């Protein structure tokens, strides 16, 4: 039992890490990863919604009638999205402004609804928690990685914090003569760099 919970958790971190392996939920992946800070922030917000909706859906899975289940899931998710919105406005307002429309958009993120439907509605609370946490954190590190790569190439340095708790500041990693490559933090760069990262992931076997 413990082993299977652990595996539900870890599969999200590597084997099924959403944007790379499943190639889903790409809008925030492309939209907010101009810096590592934004990426991680977005990832954590999504993780919160994913975790809460997974728990609630799994608790209610026997009560919700099959026919209207999708609508119910959407409402559950929307509720938690509102919670996240309100919390971020209160505690992380600058990040909230940076992420903009992508926060309410969590409600239509395929990963969140997909996990609710494919996993939480069929499994118990403990497993669903592990699943939600695993997929969410996998999503977070993927966003963080993409954000870090884009920030590094685009500005030459890494700087930021997570909700004021952890700070990092890595200046001029390529040396002073490095000319920041603005393309990376612009829209086209998002596509190209994600494409190249996917290519790199394909070179590493998933099993």
């Amino acid at each position, binding site marked *: 039992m413990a082993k299977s919970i652990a595996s539900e958790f870890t599969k999200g971190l590597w084997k099924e890490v959403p944007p790379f392996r499943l*190639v889903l939920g790409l809008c925030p992946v492309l939209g907010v990863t101009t810096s590592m800070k934004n990426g991680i922030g977005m990832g954590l917000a999504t993780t919160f919604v994913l975790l809460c909706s997974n728990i609630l859906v799994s608790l209610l899975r026997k009560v919700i009638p099959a026919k209207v289940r999708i609508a119910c899931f959407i409402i559950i998710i929307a509720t938690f999205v509102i919670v996240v919105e309100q919390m971020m406005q209160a505690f992380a307002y600058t990040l909230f402004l940076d992420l903009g429309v992508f926060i309410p958009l969590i409600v239509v993120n395929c990963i969140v609804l997909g996990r609710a*439907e*494919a996993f939480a509605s069929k499994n118990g609370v403990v497993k669903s928690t592990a699943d939600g946490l695993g997929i969410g954190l996998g999503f977070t590190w993927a966003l963080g990685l993409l954000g870090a790569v884009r920030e590094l190439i685009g500005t030459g340095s890494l700087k930021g914090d997570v909700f004021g708790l952890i700070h990092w500041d890595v200046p001029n990693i390529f040396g002073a003569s490095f000319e920041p490559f603005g393309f990376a933090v612009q829209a086209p760069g998002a596509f190209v760099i994600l494409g190249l990262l996917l290519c790199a992931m394909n070179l590493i076997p998933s099993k």
Partner: protein
Amino acid sequence: MTIAILVMLGIGATCGIILSVASKVFYVYEDPRIAEVEYFMAGANCGGCGFAGCGSAAVGVVEGKTGPSVCVVAGLEAATNIATVMGVDPGTAEPLKSLNACSGGDRADDKFIYNGADTCAAMTALYGGQRVCSIGCMGKGDCVKSCQFDAIHMGPQGFPVIDEFKCVGCGACETACPKGLLSVKTMSQRLLVFNQEDHALAPCQQTCPAEIDIPKYIRLIKEGDYEGAVNTIRERNPLLLSCGRVCPHPCEEYCRRGLEDESVSINQLKRFVADYEMNSGRRFPIACAPDTGKRVAVIGGGPAGVSCAYFLRRLGHHPTIYDAMPKLGGITRYGIPEYRLPDDVLDWEIEGILNLGIDVNYDTCIGKDFTIQSLRDEGYDAVFMGIGAWKDYTLGIKGEDLKGVSQGINFLSTVASHPEKTIPVGKRAAVVGGGNSAIDCVRTLLRLGCEKVYIVYRRTRKEMPANEVEIVASEHEGINFQFLAAPTRVIDDGQGNVKGLEYLQMELGEPDASGRRRPVPIEGSETILDVDMVISAISQQPDIGFMEGEPDKENITITRWNTFDNDPETLQCSVPYLFTGGDVATGPSLVVDAIGGGRRAARAIHQYITGEEITGTPRSLRSRHIPESLFEVVPGVIKSPRTPMPELPVAQRITSMSEVDLVISEADAAHESNRCLNCCRICYDPDQKKAQDQNAA
């Protein structure tokens, strides 16, 4: 706070009411499986599958446009569940398995050197691929990549090999293959496949009226998998013991080895595995689809009826055979003599088929005990008519009513019905005709103690329609052949008995419409053959006297040969519930033709009673050949002698009804199966290359 709750409730209630009213007002029926399939999908409508949303992907699955593994989000478990939903489609609750049709792969030559993208889809875009074979596998492995269950691998010969245990029948490979070589089918669907112009078929398989996969069963014999070989034959022909003995094997005429060497003894190999099963002391299991509850009446328990009943049973239906005789087998029992097909062999074979769950009513005769209409009234969903062609044509000459004159099938069945297989015969007998029945009559007469037996035939030996092996065997046994002789009257001895047969000598004239030179009588050449018994065995036609009492007779069309008119592709008659096959539809023909007809009718009956549209095979090959598969020369063949048929010595065999042809030994079967070139549509394994490979190893 209250307002918030009220507003949300208001919006929710309004939406809910509008939607539920709309769902009633705008209700449209759709396949319930769509909802079931959709249930297992992730429901995220993400479009990751390439379909427009989960609903449309579910429709795609149900309509067979894509496979159960379509949903990329829901993963493996959902794919398995969806496969289950699709599997429980009524009547096909059998596992779907993928099947690769091409066995060419690297054996096929290349037309050009291809240097493009490494996928089959891309290669097909360029002149249909680099292989010479227009339908063959290109070996780039799009199917291997498409399989999410690790069930397909590229085999050593450049075509994919499927691991049946891992295959879940999701259908991804079928979609991926641009050549349509991979097909995911249930057993039932496989039983109902007929040769098509664009199939990967060796010339022998194109020729076989039952469409047996000959290269496959010979390959299995070579590998020592006799059970696999038997099962392969049984997918197309349930009467392998009988066919292994009596089939004139038209397939061997088209054997590619035959162009350079003696053809492979295909039929003896069939007999070898069939006998192997019978002598092994157990019956190899035969799978049947789950019961459908549909009942079909099969009139006539000959090869066509038994074959039709066998395939219907395997498809899950309940056939009941009605036969006028006390035992099943029809012409194979009552028309083919004991020395060619022993009763105990036939009994064993038919018992195995009936054991699948087929009911039989013996000694019930159409027209006397029941009619087609009465069967319909009893609640049968469809009727198969397979009564054969049992009515002998008479010679139409003077003296045919004398004592001592009889007809071929009549004579043979009287002998066969006798428990000791013996009836009194004359001392000297003449048999008129040149077909297999005539040969059967003379050889039977000889065994019953007739001293001098003549065959009277109006053309020459070259034109005789009987099988060459049969003619040779009767020559060995000392039959006298009177060629170019046309009987004119039977001579009376004054007491109503036969005293002789008068005939006119003929000579060959100009060729007629059939290309054979027409025999022309020589004036004043009357000759009398001194015989006390005459059998006319010129041909037969179906005995359809019962149609007089048939309530629905106006609607059932009969041809001028007294056969039932039918659609040659579906074998459906002019009334939709009636299907027909075998001699009653084709006129006198081969056992193996009747078996093929039984299966063809079973397919149409299956479609009819399950409410599907009755369709023939598109680009059907019936008795045609694929031009590109027929060669003039076959390079690379090293001559190797064909295994001779073991026979009982003449002296021993003409005194008894013991079986004449014997089965080949296991060593000979190994030798003979090794002679097979393992042909496909274009590819084959040349002996020279095999020899080189062996030397290299």
